[in-house]
């Protein structure tokens, strides 16, 4: 299992990690996010499902899931297991501070048509969107060629002792969330502010949806819809304590050549505590 994280950007472009392409939601759910004691452990579920945090569809593959500790160094996932509907793993919070658990990928994708009108796309299912594959497979003179620079990122956060921010530093690749309010310092009745970045710049107008967990025990999704402001920020009023799923999407046409558009998705799990 590849665990090195030397240069995040390199790992991302190599896209050894791809999140499952699906209409379903992928999520990593910690059992708790705020921990005390000198050496706490925390367990996680990871799955892809329709209902938030209700594993009923596919276990998430863990080979793309990584963790980074309060010192910015990788932390190994322990006791990993994949069941029918969910994967589990543990994290030992051996040092105080905030840990980020994430899965991220970024790379180019392309669509075009052949001379006789057949629609083509790259990368195909199971193909890695690496630069070599792109060069080999995408005809730069293809008819109606559209090249997209895409990114996906999935995160959650846990803290032993006082929250810290080293693990929350942006990689400046794709769509990311950086805190104004610390993601492990969230309370019902207190608004939280987060900044979205696209390739390190404020992502203005990102579409954000926040959904409380437990949707299978109510009739509506109870989605909170927001759009990031000109600083890339959103302010979230948590209606009650609990686990929350956040998804954000951003796209524009300010891509680096040869791409003509860029698109990023970001999802995260947050725990909101009662005051």
């Amino acid at each position: 299992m590849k665990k090195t994280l030397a240069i995040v950007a390199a790992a991302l472009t190599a896209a050894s990690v791809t999140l499952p392409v699906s209409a379903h939601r992928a999520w990593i759910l910690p059992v708790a996010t705020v921990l005390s004691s000198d050496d706490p452990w925390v367990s996680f579920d990871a799955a892809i499902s329709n209902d938030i945090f209700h594993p009923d569809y596919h276990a998430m593959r863990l080979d793309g899931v990584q963790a980074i500790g309060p010192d910015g160094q990788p932390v190994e996932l322990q006791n990993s297991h994949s069941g029918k509907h969910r994967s589990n793993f543990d994290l030992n919070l051996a040092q105080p501070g905030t840990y980020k658990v994430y899965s991220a990928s970024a790379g180019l994708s392309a669509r075009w048509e052949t001379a006789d009108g057949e629609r083509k796309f790259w990368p195909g299912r199971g193909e890695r969107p690496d630069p070599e594959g792109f060069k080999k497979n995408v005809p730069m003179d293809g008819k109606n060629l559209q090249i997209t620079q895409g990114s996906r990122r999935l995160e959650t956060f846990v803290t032993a002792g006082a929250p810290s921010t080293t693990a929350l530093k942006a990689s400046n690749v794709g769509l990311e969330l950086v805190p104004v309010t610390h993601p492990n310092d969230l309370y019902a009745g207190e608004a939280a502010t987060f900044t979205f970045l696209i390739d390190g710049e404020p992502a203005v107008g990102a579409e954000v949806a926040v959904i409380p967990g437990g949707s299978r025990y109510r009739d509506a999704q109870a989605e909170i819809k927001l759009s990031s402001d000109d600083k890339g920020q959103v302010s979230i009023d948590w209606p009650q304590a609990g686990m929350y799923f956040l998804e954000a999407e951003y796209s524009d046409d300010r891509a680096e050549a040869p791409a003509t558009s860029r698109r990023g998705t970001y999802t995260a799990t947050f725990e909101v505590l009662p005051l």
Partner: protein
Amino acid sequence: MLKRVTRLLPLSALALAGAVQGQTLEVDLGIPRLQVAEYHKPYVALWVAREDNSVAANLAVLYDVELKDEEGEKWLKDMRQWWRRSGRSLDMPIDGLSGATKGPGEHRLVFSDRVADLAPGEYRLMVEAAREVGGREMLEVPFQWPPQKTLEAAASGDEELATVKLILAP
């Protein structure tokens, strides 16, 4: 790292220290007797909060200090308001702050050193209790420091705390 745990000083010693130092802050901490199948003494944190919720002084944190490997610290976060405002930034145990849990009944706690540096102003005594396989409850009693006259103020809980009385004398 060697960590030492000392219980809160005996009341007589504290009271004596207080008498030398000047003002004391006394708390009668009421722990209710509960009819439950599995009873554990509650963890209780007592602190002095400023009006903006920041912590002016930690008074006592009562938890399972005797458990091996500092196991008891695992549940300190359940006193979630105290954990947020102060506990998460402390390296427990702390001499004179960490203390053993207390059972049902009234317990007189007397603080002098811990309030010696309180600047004059408006404060709240905060008492937060969390019990294993039980609930969590927090009470607050507003007061002014230093006390101009003898003050007795109290708040009463419904679940995890009985009456918490604050006694101040000029």
